[in-house]
Protein backbone atom coordinates (compact mmCIF):
# COMPACT_ATOMS: atom_id res chain seq x y z
CA UNK A 1 0.00 0.00 0.00
CA UNK A 2 2.69 2.40 1.08
CA UNK A 3 4.90 1.47 -1.85
CA UNK A 4 2.15 2.06 -4.39
CA UNK A 5 1.57 5.45 -2.88
CA UNK A 6 5.23 6.31 -3.22
CA UNK A 7 5.28 5.09 -6.82
CA UNK A 8 2.32 7.26 -7.69
CA UNK A 9 3.95 10.26 -6.10
CA UNK A 10 7.26 9.74 -7.88
CA UNK A 11 5.54 9.19 -11.21
CA UNK A 12 3.53 12.31 -10.74
CA UNK A 13 6.61 14.35 -9.87
CA UNK A 14 8.39 13.11 -12.99
CA UNK A 15 5.51 13.88 -15.33
CA UNK A 16 4.92 17.29 -13.79
CA UNK A 17 8.59 18.15 -14.12
CA UNK A 18 8.69 17.07 -17.75
CA UNK A 19 5.69 19.25 -18.46
CA UNK A 20 7.20 22.19 -16.71
CA UNK A 21 10.27 21.83 -18.91
CA UNK A 22 8.07 21.70 -21.99
CA UNK A 23 6.16 24.77 -20.83
CA UNK A 24 9.09 27.00 -19.97
CA UNK A 25 11.75 25.91 -22.43
CA UNK A 26 10.59 28.19 -25.30
CA UNK A 27 10.71 31.18 -22.99
CA UNK A 28 14.14 30.21 -21.75
CA UNK A 29 15.31 29.84 -25.31
CA UNK A 30 14.08 33.23 -26.47
CA UNK A 31 15.70 34.93 -23.46
CA UNK A 32 18.99 33.14 -24.12
CA UNK A 33 18.87 34.09 -27.79
CA UNK A 34 18.21 37.72 -26.92
CA UNK A 35 21.37 37.79 -24.81
CA UNK A 36 23.65 36.32 -27.47
CA UNK A 37 25.72 38.31 -29.88
CA UNK A 38 24.98 38.14 -33.59
CA UNK A 39 27.85 35.76 -34.22
CA UNK A 40 26.90 33.40 -31.48
CA UNK A 41 23.28 33.19 -32.58
CA UNK A 42 24.38 31.94 -35.98
CA UNK A 43 27.17 29.64 -34.94
CA UNK A 44 27.34 25.90 -34.56
CA UNK A 45 27.26 23.99 -32.32
CA UNK A 46 24.35 25.71 -30.63
CA UNK A 47 25.14 27.20 -27.23
CA UNK A 48 22.66 26.55 -24.44
CA UNK A 49 24.20 29.31 -22.43
CA UNK A 50 25.68 32.43 -24.04
CA UNK A 51 29.47 32.52 -24.02
CA UNK A 52 29.36 36.27 -23.88
CA UNK A 53 26.27 37.89 -22.51
CA UNK A 54 25.44 41.09 -24.38
CA UNK A 55 22.64 43.62 -24.31
CA UNK A 56 23.33 44.77 -27.86
CA UNK A 57 20.08 43.33 -29.19
CA UNK A 58 18.12 45.38 -26.70
CA UNK A 59 20.03 48.55 -27.48
CA UNK A 60 19.55 47.96 -31.17
CA UNK A 61 15.77 47.72 -31.07
CA UNK A 62 15.54 50.98 -29.17
CA UNK A 63 18.01 52.83 -31.37
CA UNK A 64 17.13 51.51 -34.78
CA UNK A 65 13.50 50.53 -34.59
CA UNK A 66 12.15 53.02 -32.00
CA UNK A 67 10.70 50.28 -29.88
CA UNK A 68 9.81 52.76 -27.15
CA UNK A 69 7.24 54.33 -29.51
CA UNK A 70 5.58 50.98 -30.12
CA UNK A 71 5.54 50.15 -26.43
CA UNK A 72 3.90 53.48 -25.66
CA UNK A 73 1.32 53.01 -28.43
CA UNK A 74 0.47 49.51 -27.27
CA UNK A 75 0.23 50.71 -23.71
CA UNK A 76 -2.05 53.61 -24.59
CA UNK A 77 -4.38 51.54 -26.74
CA UNK A 78 -4.60 48.74 -24.18
CA UNK A 79 -5.16 51.11 -21.28
CA UNK A 80 -7.92 53.17 -22.89
CA UNK A 81 -9.69 50.19 -24.42
CA UNK A 82 -9.62 48.18 -21.19
CA UNK A 83 -10.90 51.12 -19.18
CA UNK A 84 -13.80 51.62 -21.59
CA UNK A 85 -14.54 47.91 -21.63
CA UNK A 86 -14.58 47.65 -17.85
CA UNK A 87 -16.89 50.63 -17.48
CA UNK A 88 -19.35 49.50 -20.13
CA UNK A 89 -19.23 45.86 -19.05
CA UNK A 90 -19.78 46.84 -15.44
CA UNK A 91 -23.00 48.67 -16.18
CA UNK A 92 -24.24 45.92 -18.49
CA UNK A 93 -23.13 43.11 -16.20
CA UNK A 94 -24.83 44.71 -13.21
CA UNK A 95 -28.15 44.99 -14.97
CA UNK A 96 -27.93 41.44 -16.33
CA UNK A 97 -27.14 40.08 -12.88
CA UNK A 98 -29.76 41.99 -10.90
CA UNK A 99 -32.86 42.40 -13.03
CA UNK A 100 -35.11 40.16 -15.01
CA UNK A 101 -36.62 41.97 -17.94
CA UNK A 102 -38.08 41.39 -21.34
CA UNK A 103 -35.42 40.69 -23.92
CA UNK A 104 -32.76 39.73 -21.38
CA UNK A 105 -32.32 36.26 -22.85
CA UNK A 106 -31.95 37.80 -26.30
CA UNK A 107 -29.29 40.22 -25.09
CA UNK A 108 -27.34 37.41 -23.44
CA UNK A 109 -27.70 35.28 -26.54
CA UNK A 110 -26.57 38.14 -28.74
CA UNK A 111 -23.43 38.52 -26.63
CA UNK A 112 -22.71 34.80 -26.62
CA UNK A 113 -23.11 34.48 -30.37
CA UNK A 114 -20.36 37.05 -30.92
CA UNK A 115 -18.00 34.60 -29.23
CA UNK A 116 -18.77 31.94 -31.82
CA UNK A 117 -18.69 33.99 -35.00
CA UNK A 118 -15.25 34.72 -36.38
CA UNK A 119 -14.44 38.39 -36.29
CA UNK A 120 -12.83 37.91 -39.70
CA UNK A 121 -16.05 37.72 -41.56
CA UNK A 122 -16.56 41.35 -40.63
CA UNK A 123 -12.93 42.18 -41.25
CA UNK A 124 -13.30 43.63 -44.72
CA UNK A 125 -16.45 45.64 -43.89
CA UNK A 126 -14.74 46.95 -40.75
CA UNK A 127 -11.83 48.12 -42.83
CA UNK A 128 -14.20 49.94 -45.15
CA UNK A 129 -16.05 51.47 -42.17
CA UNK A 130 -12.84 52.67 -40.57
CA UNK A 131 -11.71 54.13 -43.83
CA UNK A 132 -15.01 55.99 -44.29
CA UNK A 133 -14.74 57.30 -40.72
CA UNK A 134 -11.20 58.47 -41.60
CA UNK A 135 -9.70 56.78 -38.58
CA UNK A 136 -7.46 54.27 -40.34
CA UNK A 137 -3.88 54.59 -39.18
CA UNK A 138 -4.93 55.95 -35.83
CA UNK A 139 -4.71 54.50 -32.36
CA UNK A 140 -8.36 55.44 -31.93
CA UNK A 141 -9.45 52.82 -34.46
CA UNK A 142 -7.79 50.13 -32.37
CA UNK A 143 -9.17 51.46 -29.07
CA UNK A 144 -12.61 51.37 -30.59
CA UNK A 145 -12.42 47.93 -32.12
CA UNK A 146 -10.78 46.30 -29.09
CA UNK A 147 -13.44 47.75 -26.85
CA UNK A 148 -16.11 46.29 -29.07
CA UNK A 149 -14.42 42.90 -29.31
CA UNK A 150 -14.15 42.57 -25.55
CA UNK A 151 -17.51 43.95 -24.43
CA UNK A 152 -19.58 40.76 -24.76
CA UNK A 153 -17.20 38.49 -22.92
CA UNK A 154 -16.37 40.98 -20.18
CA UNK A 155 -20.03 41.79 -19.63
CA UNK A 156 -20.77 38.12 -19.06
CA UNK A 157 -17.81 37.79 -16.69
CA UNK A 158 -18.89 40.91 -14.78
CA UNK A 159 -22.42 39.68 -14.40
CA UNK A 160 -20.96 36.51 -12.88
CA UNK A 161 -19.05 38.58 -10.33
CA UNK A 162 -22.14 40.66 -9.45
CA UNK A 163 -24.19 37.53 -8.88
CA UNK A 164 -21.88 36.51 -6.08
CA UNK A 165 -22.57 39.71 -4.16
CA UNK A 166 -25.78 39.64 -2.14
CA UNK A 167 -28.62 41.98 -3.08
CA UNK A 168 -29.07 43.07 0.51
CA UNK A 169 -26.04 45.33 0.38
CA UNK A 170 -27.29 47.80 -2.16
CA UNK A 171 -30.85 47.50 -0.89
CA UNK A 172 -29.62 48.71 2.46
CA UNK A 173 -27.79 51.57 0.81
CA UNK A 174 -30.88 52.50 -1.19
CA UNK A 175 -32.91 52.37 2.00
CA UNK A 176 -30.50 54.99 3.33
CA UNK A 177 -31.33 57.19 0.40
CA UNK A 178 -28.75 56.26 -2.20
CA UNK A 179 -29.91 56.09 -5.79
CA UNK A 180 -29.31 52.76 -7.50
CA UNK A 181 -26.38 54.13 -9.44
CA UNK A 182 -24.67 55.65 -6.44
CA UNK A 183 -25.33 52.46 -4.46
CA UNK A 184 -23.62 50.60 -7.25
CA UNK A 185 -20.56 52.80 -7.26
CA UNK A 186 -20.30 53.46 -3.54
CA UNK A 187 -21.18 50.05 -2.12
CA UNK A 188 -20.82 47.34 -4.74
CA UNK A 189 -17.80 48.49 -6.74
CA UNK A 190 -15.45 48.60 -3.73
CA UNK A 191 -16.38 45.02 -2.85
CA UNK A 192 -15.97 43.96 -6.45
CA UNK A 193 -12.52 45.49 -6.90
CA UNK A 194 -10.70 42.15 -7.30
CA UNK A 195 -13.16 41.09 -9.98
CA UNK A 196 -12.95 44.43 -11.72
CA UNK A 197 -9.17 44.29 -11.63
CA UNK A 198 -9.19 40.79 -13.09
CA UNK A 199 -11.49 41.86 -15.91
CA UNK A 200 -9.37 44.91 -16.58
CA UNK A 201 -6.19 42.89 -16.73
CA UNK A 202 -7.77 40.24 -18.92
CA UNK A 203 -8.87 42.98 -21.33
CA UNK A 204 -5.48 44.66 -21.18
CA UNK A 205 -3.64 41.47 -22.06
CA UNK A 206 -6.00 40.75 -24.93
CA UNK A 207 -5.49 44.25 -26.37
CA UNK A 208 -1.75 44.08 -25.86
CA UNK A 209 -1.58 40.81 -27.78
CA UNK A 210 -4.00 41.51 -30.62
CA UNK A 211 -2.45 41.33 -34.05
CA UNK A 212 -4.83 40.91 -36.97
CA UNK A 213 -6.93 44.06 -36.59
CA UNK A 214 -3.84 46.08 -35.81
CA UNK A 215 -2.08 44.85 -38.93
CA UNK A 216 -5.16 45.60 -40.97
CA UNK A 217 -5.77 49.12 -39.65
CA UNK A 218 -2.27 50.43 -38.92
CA UNK A 219 0.40 51.12 -41.45
CA UNK A 220 2.11 54.29 -40.30
CA UNK A 221 5.31 54.18 -38.30
CA UNK A 222 4.27 56.62 -35.57
CA UNK A 223 1.12 54.74 -34.57
CA UNK A 224 2.33 51.15 -34.84
CA UNK A 225 1.71 48.88 -31.90
CA UNK A 226 4.22 46.21 -30.93
CA UNK A 227 2.68 43.33 -32.92
CA UNK A 228 2.40 45.49 -36.05
CA UNK A 229 6.00 46.61 -35.76
CA UNK A 230 7.19 43.05 -35.32
CA UNK A 231 5.07 41.93 -38.22
CA UNK A 232 6.70 44.55 -40.43
CA UNK A 233 10.04 43.35 -39.11
CA UNK A 234 9.36 39.89 -40.49
CA UNK A 235 8.23 41.01 -43.87
CA UNK A 236 10.91 43.52 -44.71
CA UNK A 237 14.07 41.68 -43.84
CA UNK A 238 15.06 38.18 -43.30
CA UNK A 239 14.35 37.99 -39.61
CA UNK A 240 17.08 39.30 -37.37
CA UNK A 241 16.65 36.78 -34.63
CA UNK A 242 18.66 38.62 -32.02
CA UNK A 243 16.63 41.80 -32.23
CA UNK A 244 13.43 39.83 -32.65
CA UNK A 245 14.11 37.84 -29.49
CA UNK A 246 14.85 40.99 -27.53
CA UNK A 247 11.62 42.57 -28.78
CA UNK A 248 9.70 39.42 -27.87
CA UNK A 249 11.10 39.36 -24.36
CA UNK A 250 10.31 43.02 -23.81
CA UNK A 251 6.77 42.76 -25.10
CA UNK A 252 6.05 39.68 -23.01
CA UNK A 253 7.25 41.14 -19.71
CA UNK A 254 4.26 43.43 -18.99
CA UNK A 255 1.61 40.82 -19.64
CA UNK A 256 3.60 38.24 -17.77
CA UNK A 257 3.83 40.45 -14.71
CA UNK A 258 0.13 41.28 -14.83
CA UNK A 259 -0.70 37.64 -15.31
CA UNK A 260 1.43 36.46 -12.41
CA UNK A 261 -0.02 39.18 -10.24
CA UNK A 262 -3.67 38.33 -10.69
CA UNK A 263 -3.65 34.79 -11.98
CA UNK A 264 -5.92 33.56 -9.21
CA UNK A 265 -8.74 36.00 -9.90
CA UNK A 266 -8.36 35.57 -13.61
CA UNK A 267 -8.71 31.81 -13.47
CA UNK A 268 -11.68 32.16 -11.16
CA UNK A 269 -13.39 34.64 -13.44
CA UNK A 270 -12.71 32.66 -16.57
CA UNK A 271 -13.90 29.35 -15.22
CA UNK A 272 -17.05 31.14 -14.09
CA UNK A 273 -17.71 32.60 -17.48
CA UNK A 274 -16.45 29.42 -19.14
CA UNK A 275 -15.67 31.23 -22.36
CA UNK A 276 -12.50 32.46 -23.97
CA UNK A 277 -12.73 35.91 -25.51
Amino acid sequence: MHREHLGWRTGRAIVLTLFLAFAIFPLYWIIITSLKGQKEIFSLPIQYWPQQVTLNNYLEIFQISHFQVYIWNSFLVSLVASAMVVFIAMLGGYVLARFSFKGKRQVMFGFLVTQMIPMFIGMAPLYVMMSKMHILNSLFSLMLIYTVMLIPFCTIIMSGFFQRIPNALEEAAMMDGCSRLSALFRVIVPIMLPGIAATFIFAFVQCWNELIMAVLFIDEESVKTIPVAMNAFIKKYDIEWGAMSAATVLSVIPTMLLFAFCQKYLVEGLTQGAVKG
Partner: protein
Amino acid sequence: MDTQKPIVMMTKQVVPEGKKSFRISKEGRFIFLCLLPAILFVSVFTYYPLVRGIIMSFQNYTLFDLMNIQFIGLDNFVNVLTSPDFPRVAMNSFYWVFFSLVFQLLFGFMLALMMQKKFRGRGIYQAFLFFPWAMSGFLIGLIWRWMFNAQFGVINDLLLKTGLIDAPISFLADGTWAMAAVIIANIWYGVAFFAIMILAALQSIPEELYEAAAMDGAGRIQQFWRVTLPYIMPTILVTILLRVIWILNFPDIIYAMTNGAPAGSTHIFATYMIDKVIFGQDYGQASAVGVIIVVILMLFTIFYVKATKVEKGGDF
Protein backbone atom coordinates in the same frame (compact mmCIF):
# COMPACT_ATOMS: atom_id res chain seq x y z
CA MET B 1 -26.25 32.64 -15.44
CA ASP B 2 -29.50 33.88 -14.02
CA THR B 3 -29.52 32.34 -10.58
CA GLN B 4 -30.06 35.45 -8.51
CA LYS B 5 -33.60 36.30 -7.59
CA PRO B 6 -34.31 39.46 -9.54
CA ILE B 7 -35.23 42.52 -7.56
CA VAL B 8 -38.14 43.33 -9.81
CA MET B 9 -39.83 40.07 -8.85
CA MET B 10 -39.12 40.52 -5.18
CA THR B 11 -40.44 44.04 -4.95
CA LYS B 12 -43.53 43.30 -7.00
CA GLN B 13 -45.63 42.19 -4.03
CA VAL B 14 -45.01 45.31 -1.97
CA VAL B 15 -45.73 47.76 -4.76
CA PRO B 16 -49.41 48.77 -4.94
CA GLU B 17 -51.10 48.01 -8.25
CA GLY B 18 -51.53 51.64 -9.19
CA LYS B 19 -47.85 52.55 -8.94
CA LYS B 20 -46.67 49.52 -10.86
CA SER B 21 -46.34 51.10 -14.28
CA PHE B 22 -44.37 54.04 -12.90
CA ARG B 23 -41.91 51.73 -11.15
CA ILE B 24 -41.35 49.59 -14.19
CA SER B 25 -40.76 52.53 -16.45
CA LYS B 26 -38.22 54.02 -14.06
CA GLU B 27 -36.47 50.73 -13.60
CA GLY B 28 -36.82 50.00 -17.30
CA ARG B 29 -35.07 53.24 -18.11
CA PHE B 30 -32.19 52.35 -15.81
CA ILE B 31 -31.86 48.92 -17.41
CA PHE B 32 -32.03 50.42 -20.87
CA LEU B 33 -29.42 53.10 -20.18
CA CYS B 34 -27.00 50.65 -18.59
CA LEU B 35 -27.18 48.22 -21.47
CA LEU B 36 -27.28 50.85 -24.20
CA PRO B 37 -23.51 51.37 -24.66
CA ALA B 38 -22.80 47.64 -24.82
CA ILE B 39 -25.62 46.91 -27.24
CA LEU B 40 -24.89 49.94 -29.37
CA PHE B 41 -21.18 49.17 -29.74
CA VAL B 42 -21.75 45.50 -30.46
CA SER B 43 -24.52 46.18 -32.96
CA VAL B 44 -22.64 48.81 -34.91
CA PHE B 45 -19.18 47.27 -34.90
CA THR B 46 -19.89 43.55 -34.71
CA TYR B 47 -23.31 42.77 -36.10
CA TYR B 48 -23.35 45.36 -38.84
CA PRO B 49 -19.95 44.29 -40.29
CA LEU B 50 -21.07 40.69 -39.94
CA VAL B 51 -24.16 41.31 -42.06
CA ARG B 52 -22.15 43.43 -44.49
CA GLY B 53 -19.60 40.64 -44.73
CA ILE B 54 -22.28 38.15 -45.62
CA ILE B 55 -23.58 40.52 -48.29
CA MET B 56 -20.05 41.10 -49.58
CA SER B 57 -19.62 37.39 -50.09
CA PHE B 58 -22.21 37.68 -52.88
CA GLN B 59 -20.53 40.70 -54.49
CA ASN B 60 -17.45 41.18 -56.67
CA TYR B 61 -15.92 43.41 -53.99
CA THR B 62 -12.25 43.97 -54.75
CA LEU B 63 -10.08 46.96 -53.96
CA PHE B 64 -8.86 46.99 -57.56
CA ASP B 65 -12.24 47.97 -58.90
CA LEU B 66 -14.42 49.75 -56.37
CA MET B 67 -16.50 51.49 -59.04
CA ASN B 68 -18.04 48.32 -60.30
CA ILE B 69 -19.49 46.42 -57.35
CA GLN B 70 -22.42 44.21 -58.15
CA PHE B 71 -24.14 41.12 -56.91
CA ILE B 72 -22.64 38.12 -58.61
CA GLY B 73 -24.63 35.38 -56.93
CA LEU B 74 -22.61 32.41 -55.79
CA ASP B 75 -19.54 33.13 -57.93
CA ASN B 76 -17.28 33.84 -54.94
CA PHE B 77 -18.28 30.59 -53.32
CA VAL B 78 -17.80 28.68 -56.55
CA ASN B 79 -14.39 30.26 -57.02
CA VAL B 80 -13.28 29.45 -53.50
CA LEU B 81 -14.67 25.93 -53.45
CA THR B 82 -13.28 24.97 -56.85
CA SER B 83 -9.90 26.61 -56.32
CA PRO B 84 -7.03 24.11 -56.31
CA ASP B 85 -6.07 25.36 -52.82
CA PHE B 86 -9.38 24.49 -51.27
CA PRO B 87 -9.05 20.75 -50.54
CA ARG B 88 -5.71 21.33 -48.88
CA VAL B 89 -6.95 24.28 -46.83
CA ALA B 90 -9.94 22.22 -45.68
CA MET B 91 -7.78 19.23 -44.73
CA ASN B 92 -5.28 21.48 -42.96
CA SER B 93 -8.08 23.14 -41.00
CA PHE B 94 -9.28 19.71 -39.93
CA TYR B 95 -5.81 18.54 -38.86
CA TRP B 96 -5.19 21.85 -37.12
CA VAL B 97 -8.33 21.59 -35.03
CA PHE B 98 -8.33 17.84 -34.49
CA PHE B 99 -4.74 17.26 -33.40
CA SER B 100 -4.49 20.50 -31.43
CA LEU B 101 -7.67 19.63 -29.57
CA VAL B 102 -6.87 15.98 -28.87
CA PHE B 103 -3.43 16.68 -27.44
CA GLN B 104 -4.48 19.78 -25.54
CA LEU B 105 -7.30 17.80 -23.95
CA LEU B 106 -5.12 14.78 -23.21
CA PHE B 107 -2.25 16.73 -21.66
CA GLY B 108 -4.55 19.21 -19.95
CA PHE B 109 -6.57 16.41 -18.39
CA MET B 110 -3.48 14.60 -17.23
CA LEU B 111 -2.04 17.73 -15.68
CA ALA B 112 -5.29 18.65 -13.96
CA LEU B 113 -5.53 15.17 -12.41
CA MET B 114 -1.98 15.40 -11.15
CA MET B 115 -2.48 18.85 -9.72
CA GLN B 116 -5.77 18.01 -8.04
CA LYS B 117 -4.12 17.04 -4.76
CA LYS B 118 -2.21 19.82 -3.05
CA PHE B 119 1.57 19.61 -3.16
CA ARG B 120 4.28 21.97 -2.10
CA GLY B 121 4.80 24.77 -4.61
CA ARG B 122 1.58 24.07 -6.51
CA GLY B 123 0.76 27.74 -6.81
CA ILE B 124 4.09 28.57 -8.43
CA TYR B 125 3.92 25.47 -10.58
CA GLN B 126 0.49 26.52 -11.80
CA ALA B 127 1.70 30.02 -12.62
CA PHE B 128 4.58 28.66 -14.73
CA LEU B 129 2.42 26.16 -16.47
CA PHE B 130 -0.20 28.71 -17.39
CA PHE B 131 2.04 31.49 -18.56
CA PRO B 132 1.97 30.62 -22.32
CA TRP B 133 -1.61 31.68 -22.06
CA ALA B 134 -0.56 35.26 -21.30
CA MET B 135 1.37 35.42 -24.56
CA SER B 136 0.06 36.40 -27.94
CA GLY B 137 -0.29 33.76 -30.61
CA PHE B 138 1.89 35.92 -32.80
CA LEU B 139 4.83 35.87 -30.38
CA ILE B 140 4.36 32.17 -29.79
CA GLY B 141 4.57 31.68 -33.53
CA LEU B 142 7.80 33.68 -33.69
CA ILE B 143 9.43 31.79 -30.85
CA TRP B 144 8.60 28.41 -32.33
CA ARG B 145 9.65 29.58 -35.77
CA TRP B 146 13.07 30.27 -34.34
CA MET B 147 13.21 26.98 -32.46
CA PHE B 148 12.20 25.06 -35.59
CA ASN B 149 14.83 26.83 -37.70
CA ALA B 150 16.50 24.26 -39.96
CA GLN B 151 20.06 25.31 -39.36
CA PHE B 152 20.24 27.07 -36.02
CA GLY B 153 17.06 25.79 -34.42
CA VAL B 154 17.30 24.25 -30.98
CA ILE B 155 14.80 21.50 -31.76
CA ASN B 156 16.98 19.97 -34.45
CA ASP B 157 19.90 20.19 -32.06
CA LEU B 158 18.01 18.43 -29.27
CA LEU B 159 16.79 15.70 -31.63
CA LEU B 160 20.29 15.15 -32.98
CA LYS B 161 21.79 15.02 -29.50
CA THR B 162 19.27 12.47 -28.26
CA GLY B 163 19.89 10.42 -31.38
CA LEU B 164 16.28 10.56 -32.57
CA ILE B 165 17.39 11.84 -35.99
CA ASP B 166 20.66 11.60 -37.93
CA ALA B 167 20.39 14.75 -40.02
CA PRO B 168 18.69 18.09 -39.38
CA ILE B 169 15.13 18.40 -40.66
CA SER B 170 13.94 21.49 -42.55
CA PHE B 171 10.77 21.62 -40.50
CA LEU B 172 9.24 24.74 -41.97
CA ALA B 173 10.26 24.10 -45.57
CA ASP B 174 8.48 20.77 -45.90
CA GLY B 175 4.66 20.92 -46.02
CA THR B 176 3.96 17.94 -43.78
CA TRP B 177 6.57 18.85 -41.19
CA ALA B 178 5.47 22.48 -41.26
CA MET B 179 1.87 21.51 -40.50
CA ALA B 180 3.07 19.31 -37.62
CA ALA B 181 5.24 22.18 -36.36
CA VAL B 182 2.45 24.74 -36.21
CA ILE B 183 0.22 22.21 -34.46
CA ILE B 184 2.92 21.50 -31.85
CA ALA B 185 3.18 25.23 -31.14
CA ASN B 186 -0.59 25.42 -30.76
CA ILE B 187 -0.64 22.44 -28.39
CA TRP B 188 1.99 24.16 -26.27
CA TYR B 189 -0.23 27.20 -26.09
CA GLY B 190 -3.57 25.53 -25.39
CA VAL B 191 -2.78 22.84 -22.82
CA ALA B 192 -3.06 25.39 -20.03
CA PHE B 193 -6.64 26.29 -20.89
CA PHE B 194 -7.87 22.72 -20.63
CA ALA B 195 -5.84 22.24 -17.47
CA ILE B 196 -7.45 25.32 -15.89
CA MET B 197 -10.98 24.32 -16.80
CA ILE B 198 -10.64 20.69 -15.75
CA LEU B 199 -8.78 21.55 -12.57
CA ALA B 200 -11.57 23.94 -11.60
CA ALA B 201 -14.15 21.21 -12.26
CA LEU B 202 -12.16 18.64 -10.30
CA GLN B 203 -11.92 20.92 -7.31
CA SER B 204 -15.66 21.44 -7.28
CA ILE B 205 -16.37 17.73 -6.75
CA PRO B 206 -17.75 17.28 -3.23
CA GLU B 207 -15.49 15.13 -1.04
CA GLU B 208 -18.51 13.15 0.18
CA LEU B 209 -18.91 11.57 -3.23
CA TYR B 210 -15.48 9.99 -2.94
CA GLU B 211 -16.13 8.96 0.65
CA ALA B 212 -19.38 7.30 -0.36
CA ALA B 213 -17.68 5.54 -3.25
CA ALA B 214 -14.87 4.36 -0.98
CA MET B 215 -17.43 3.01 1.49
CA ASP B 216 -19.00 1.02 -1.31
CA GLY B 217 -15.58 -0.50 -1.86
CA ALA B 218 -14.55 1.37 -4.99
CA GLY B 219 -10.80 1.53 -5.53
CA ARG B 220 -8.93 4.49 -6.93
CA ILE B 221 -9.53 3.51 -10.55
CA GLN B 222 -13.19 2.75 -9.98
CA GLN B 223 -13.60 6.09 -8.21
CA PHE B 224 -12.20 7.78 -11.27
CA TRP B 225 -14.69 6.12 -13.63
CA ARG B 226 -17.72 6.31 -11.34
CA VAL B 227 -17.26 9.67 -9.61
CA THR B 228 -14.64 11.88 -11.23
CA LEU B 229 -15.36 11.39 -14.89
CA PRO B 230 -19.17 11.70 -14.78
CA TYR B 231 -18.89 14.77 -12.59
CA ILE B 232 -16.51 16.70 -14.82
CA MET B 233 -17.90 15.45 -18.15
CA PRO B 234 -20.16 18.49 -18.72
CA THR B 235 -17.21 20.85 -18.26
CA ILE B 236 -15.09 18.83 -20.66
CA LEU B 237 -17.80 18.72 -23.30
CA VAL B 238 -18.48 22.45 -23.13
CA THR B 239 -14.77 23.24 -23.19
CA ILE B 240 -14.26 21.04 -26.26
CA LEU B 241 -17.05 22.83 -28.11
CA LEU B 242 -15.66 26.26 -27.28
CA ARG B 243 -12.15 25.22 -28.18
CA VAL B 244 -13.13 23.82 -31.57
CA ILE B 245 -14.75 27.12 -32.43
CA TRP B 246 -11.84 29.05 -31.10
CA ILE B 247 -9.00 26.99 -32.56
CA LEU B 248 -10.55 27.10 -36.01
CA ASN B 249 -10.72 30.88 -35.76
CA PHE B 250 -7.19 31.29 -34.47
CA PRO B 251 -4.75 32.25 -37.23
CA ASP B 252 -2.07 34.07 -35.19
CA ILE B 253 0.39 31.22 -34.62
CA ILE B 254 0.33 30.07 -38.23
CA TYR B 255 0.44 33.64 -39.47
CA ALA B 256 3.67 34.28 -37.57
CA MET B 257 5.27 30.88 -38.07
CA THR B 258 4.75 30.16 -41.76
CA ASN B 259 2.00 32.47 -43.04
CA GLY B 260 0.80 29.53 -45.11
CA ALA B 261 4.22 28.64 -46.46
CA PRO B 262 5.65 26.58 -47.99
CA ALA B 263 3.44 27.12 -51.04
CA GLY B 264 0.19 27.33 -49.12
CA SER B 265 0.69 24.01 -47.38
CA THR B 266 -0.02 25.34 -43.89
CA HIS B 267 -2.99 27.54 -44.70
CA ILE B 268 -6.12 26.99 -42.68
CA PHE B 269 -9.39 28.80 -43.46
CA ALA B 270 -8.56 31.71 -41.17
CA THR B 271 -5.11 32.41 -42.60
CA TYR B 272 -6.38 31.82 -46.12
CA MET B 273 -8.98 34.49 -45.52
CA ILE B 274 -6.45 36.98 -44.16
CA ASP B 275 -4.32 36.25 -47.20
CA LYS B 276 -7.23 37.13 -49.46
CA VAL B 277 -7.87 40.41 -47.61
CA ILE B 278 -4.33 41.67 -47.08
CA PHE B 279 -2.57 40.35 -50.17
CA GLY B 280 -5.35 39.54 -52.62
CA GLN B 281 -7.53 42.52 -51.60
CA ASP B 282 -10.45 40.45 -52.76
CA TYR B 283 -13.04 41.15 -50.09
CA GLY B 284 -15.74 39.20 -51.87
CA GLN B 285 -13.82 35.94 -51.84
CA ALA B 286 -12.46 36.58 -48.35
CA SER B 287 -16.01 37.03 -47.09
CA ALA B 288 -17.04 33.84 -48.85
CA VAL B 289 -14.32 32.00 -46.93
CA GLY B 290 -15.66 33.63 -43.75
CA VAL B 291 -19.19 32.48 -44.48
CA ILE B 292 -17.88 28.97 -45.13
CA ILE B 293 -16.18 29.00 -41.71
CA VAL B 294 -19.41 30.09 -40.03
CA VAL B 295 -21.46 27.43 -41.83
CA ILE B 296 -18.99 24.71 -40.84
CA LEU B 297 -19.02 25.87 -37.23
CA MET B 298 -22.80 26.05 -37.12
CA LEU B 299 -23.20 22.56 -38.54
CA PHE B 300 -20.59 21.24 -36.15
CA THR B 301 -22.18 22.94 -33.14
CA ILE B 302 -25.65 21.61 -33.97
CA PHE B 303 -24.31 18.12 -34.49
CA TYR B 304 -22.16 18.26 -31.38
CA VAL B 305 -24.89 19.57 -29.12
CA LYS B 306 -27.29 16.89 -30.40
CA ALA B 307 -24.73 14.11 -30.02
CA THR B 308 -23.50 15.03 -26.55
CA LYS B 309 -26.56 16.72 -25.09
CA VAL B 310 -24.10 19.34 -23.96
CA GLU B 311 -26.78 21.93 -23.29
CA LYS B 312 -27.54 20.13 -20.05
CA GLY B 313 -23.93 20.62 -19.09
CA GLY B 314 -23.76 24.26 -18.50
CA ASP B 315 -24.91 27.78 -18.81
CA PHE B 316 -22.07 29.06 -20.87
